[in-house]
Each structure stands twice: as C-alpha cells, then as structure tokens.
C-alpha cells in the first residue's frame, strides 16, 4: 500500500516540480539566489513567506511536493491547503483556499515548552527546527503550537514539522512547496531585505497572519485572508467522527 502510493505520487511529484520550477524562479528573483550567505547587511536573511490567496487554486501541488521532498509519513502533513465553502448573506457560495504550514513564529510557544531544548529557533534565518536526534517525543510542542503545525512522526517517533525546506534554502534553492506552486501563490524570501519580493509584497499589500490573538509573531503572511478564517474556523466540518455525526448544525457561536 505504502510504497505503491509513494510510487504513484512520486511520478506526479517529479512532473509537477519540473514544470513549476520556471514559474517560481521567474516569480521570486531574490529567493532563487537566497542562500544563507546572500542576505543584506550584517544580520543576514530572515526567511518569510507570503501566501497570495488570490492566486491559490487549491490544487494541493504543494501538499504533494512537500510529502515527496521531506518523506512525510502517510498519516500527516507538514503543509496542506484547507478548502472552505463560504456563503455570505445574499452572495453566491465562494470557494476559499487556505494553505497552512508552520509559521516559523518569532515568538514560538513550541520552543519554550520543549523540556530538552530539542526544538529551537535558528539564529538569524529564523526557521523553527527540531533536532530529531535529541527529541524525546513528549509531544509537548505539538500541544503548544496554536496552528496544529506539528505532529509526531511515527516513523522517527519524534516531533516533525515544516522546516521551510532548510536543506534546500541552504543550497540556494526554494522550498519545495514554493517551487511547485502552480499559481505562484507561495512567495518565499528574505524579510530583512527591503528589495526582496516578499518585502515588496508586504509593503504594497494589506496582509494578515493567522491567529494574531496568540501573539506568536508569524513569518507567514497572507494576502486576501477573510477574517472569518484567520482563527479556529467554526464551521461545518469535513470530517465527522462518531458521536458528532448526529449534529445538524452544532451552533458554535463565533
């Protein structure tokens, strides 16, 4: 089962990544040259992502590319695209996409709870990473992350999450999800560099972050994010486990 799905997705992944490379390359000039030695000033680059929701078509190419690039186990995601149908008063239903990933927060609650300092924020570039050789798999960080961005990888039995593809950025490449994004909705780059594409997008657009009330100071920004979706989305769920299925509309008041 496992390997056959892998092989199947493997074929798709190669095609998709190959086809998308030029798009992403054209799209974010600064990021393609964004190796750790390439930043502006003494402080070096500070990585961040802008997700332009106007361009996301919910194709899940990023979801697949991430799984392929990072050998994410079958029952988990480092990134995925949530899809919602939003019906506003007097308007037609609209499909809304929301790519989710670790926000590489500047105030990450996951880091301070780790009992053995296995998860840490990379000096300078700012990725929040897990040292899998030290992680005891206590899952405290999984509880503390307000974005459900972490999980326990049952193949390594340690905490796992998006790394902003640190192994790629260190080699001067873009993260796999950015590279593969069909619509060019994911833009990655140096937030310290005012000339980078991400910085210019932040300067020229109204952007928001997920769950600002958690004061985590995310480094993933969204253009065109509906307020109703920036927190816990109190809607009708796609997945209904037994005992909650009997509910028609569960009347969450938010």
């Amino acid at each position, binding site marked *: 089962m496992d390997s056959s799905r892998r092989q199947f997705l493997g074929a798709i992944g190669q095609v998709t990544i190959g086809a998308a490379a030029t798009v992403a390359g054209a799209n974010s000039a600064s990021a393609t040259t964004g190796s750790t030695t390439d930043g502006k000033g003494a402080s070096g680059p500070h990585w961040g992502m802008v997700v332009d929701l106007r361009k996301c078509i919910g194709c899940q190419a990023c979801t697949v590319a991430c799984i392929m690039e990072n050998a994410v186990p079958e029952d988990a995601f480092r990134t995925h695209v949530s899809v919602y149908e939003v019906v506003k008063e007097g308007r037609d239903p609209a499909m809304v996409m929301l790519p989710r990933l670790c926000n590489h927060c500047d105030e990450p609650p996951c880091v301070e709870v780790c009992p053995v300092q296995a998860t840490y924020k990379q000096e300078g570039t700012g990725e929040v990473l897990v040292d899998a050789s030290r992680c005891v798999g206590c899952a405290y960080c999984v509880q503390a992350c307000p974005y459900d961005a972490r999980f326990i990888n049952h193949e390594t039995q340690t905490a796992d999450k998006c790394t902003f593809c640190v192994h790629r950025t260190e080699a001067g490449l873009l993260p796999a999800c950015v590279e593969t994004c069909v619509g060019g909705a994911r833009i990655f780059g140096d937030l310290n560099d005012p000339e980078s594409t991400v910085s210019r997008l932040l300067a020229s657009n109204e952007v928001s972050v997920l769950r600002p009330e958690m004061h985590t100071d995310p480094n993933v920004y969204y253009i065109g994010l509906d307020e109703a979706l920036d927190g816990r989305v109190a809607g009708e769920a796609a997945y209904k486990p037994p005992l909650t299925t009997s509910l028609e509309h569960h009347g969450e008041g*938010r």
Partner: protein
Amino acid sequence: MQIHELVGAVHEAAWLPWAVQYFFLIGMSTTALFLSFPAFVLGRASSLPHARLALITAVTTGISGPVALLADLHQPGRFWEFFVYTHATSWMAWGSWIVMSYVTLLLLYAWAVNRPAFYRWGQDDWRFAWIFRFLAFGSPANGFARIIGIGAGVAALGILTYTGMEVAVVYSRPLWHTPLLPLQFAATGAVGALGVMLVLGRLFATGRVVEARMNRMLALALVIVGIIGALWFAVALSGISESHTEALASVAGFTVWQRIALWAAAAIIIPLVIAVVAPSRSGWITGLIAIHAAWMFRWTVFMGGQAVPKVGSGLYDALMPTGLEGLMGVIGTFGLWIFLLILYTTFVPWAEAEVPDDGSTSSAAPQSARTV
C-alpha cells in the same frame, strides 16, 4: 455567514491515554500522601486506620504513575535527556526533577513509617525473615519519618503545581488554559484517593467508623470539585475571560460534550448524596464512583481537549478510544497498579504501621501479625 470545510487535515491525539493514566495516578498519589500526614507526620493515633490506607494508595499509585509517564514518551529510551538538557522555560523539564524527588522521598517515607514492623518481622523465625532483616537495616528507629514525610509533602506540592501548570500554560488549547486547572487536578485527585481508600477499607474490613470518616472527607472533596467546576462555568459564561468563553463555545454545541457535562454532574452529586446519607455502609459504591470520577475528569480534559481542532472545524476523534491499541495504556497501567496493590498489601506490614516514634512517646511494641 456559513462556512463548510471541504478539505481539512485531521490531527490525532499526540498525548495518548498513557498520559491520562499518569495524571490520574500521580494526582491520587500526592493527595493520598497528605491524607497520611495526620497520623504519620502530625502523630495523631486516632487517624491511623485511614492514614494506613492512604499510604498504600500513595505508594502504589506513586510507582505506577511515572511508569505510565515514561510510556507516553515516543522515545522512552531518551528519558535521561530530561536531566541533562533541562530547559528552564518548560514546566515539563522541572516536572522531571520533581517527579524523581517525589518518588524517592515517598518511598523513603513509606519505608521509614514501616521500619519498626519490618524489624519485628525480621526478628521472627520464619522463611522470609531475612528479607525483613535486610529491609529494617538493623534497627526499628523511625523518628525521622516525620521529616522525610514533610520533604515528600513539599515534593507533592511541587507535583500538584507542575502537573497543573504544565497543562494550564498551553494557551493554544482554551479548554486547558485556565488557572483553575491545578486546583481541579488537586481536588479530583483527592476524590480519587479517597475512593481508593474506601474500597481498600472495605477489602480489609477496617470498620464502619473509618468508612464513615472517609466518606465525610470524600463528601467535602466532592463539594470542592463542584464549586471549582461551577466557578469555571461562571467565568466562561460571564465573558470576563476570552479564553474561558472560547473554551465553552468550542464544545458546548456538541451532544457528546453535553452528555459529558451531565455525566460529570452526576459523578459529583450521586456519590455526594450517598456519602452524606449512608456514610458507614456505602464504601464500595461511593469509592468506585469516586475513582471513576477522578479518572473521567482527566480523560475528558486530555482526550477531549485534544479532540478540539486548533484551526479546523468540528471535532477530531481523540475523545473515544479507537480499538484495543488506544486502550492498552489504560489496561496496562491499571494492571500494573493492581499488581502493586497486591504486592504491597501482602508483603508490607502496612496494618502495623504506627505513629513514628521520635522518642517523646514510649508505646509498647505491638504484636507482629504477619499475613505471609
């Protein structure tokens, strides 16, 4: 506005039922320890019968709890890292030191309390006398039991604080993020401990007077649990704390949670009424309901809390265990605990434990009453 989630990720519970077992057992252990103090630390002989039961409870749960904790780690072989790479900002890191101190002091305290009886059993001429001679270390003196007890009490306060805070600081889960949680863990821990003591009292026929006394203490603990629960609801409904209000809103609409609320209310009120109306004849029933109430509170907090999505909609299915695998932690730790109970009550002269003799009192040495 209406929102329907069409594609979303389901997150499994990362803290498994083992964690529920740990918090359940350690909560009972620490509160039972305090219930042993009137006799063994404060020297009140009239409290001996229930203090002996409390000590059995404290020791057996105090050993099986940390075993469950270890099993909840996905890398149990790396537990030593807790002590080498201690991260000062993490309550869990402090917890590892506190748990270690607590278990050590608890076992020392239990040993000191039972030392005179170990000594007596070692003096008799019988098959296992050599074991007890070894355990007594050549003397029946145990005046130091009180000071060790106080040390264990300080560590127990540490446990109650850290277990509560460890969970309460997780602001990403509004259901956990309440300053009332440490108090709830302590109060429901006492309910569970008294439940175990009532059942043990029945098993070892400690008599109606002791049973009535423990039932009255149970009633008090249940009232306290009820008051804290009511306070939580009042805060959530009043809107003075956004996080409490959000916690209630995230679950109130689900029938499964409405049933849990009714169940919890029943688990407080039913044993409370029975304990007040028939305190000297109801130990089995109040005891078993109390144990169940303490366990169910933790199951609801941990598994129920993890069933609430942080960003997605609806509920995940952590609340109900799926298959035998999820229940193995529960079955395994209960099995270990019951095994320890049998071992302890068979091989430790618990019924002969007296008020520690610090030289100020001179009581006649009681007769040995071996059970093995």
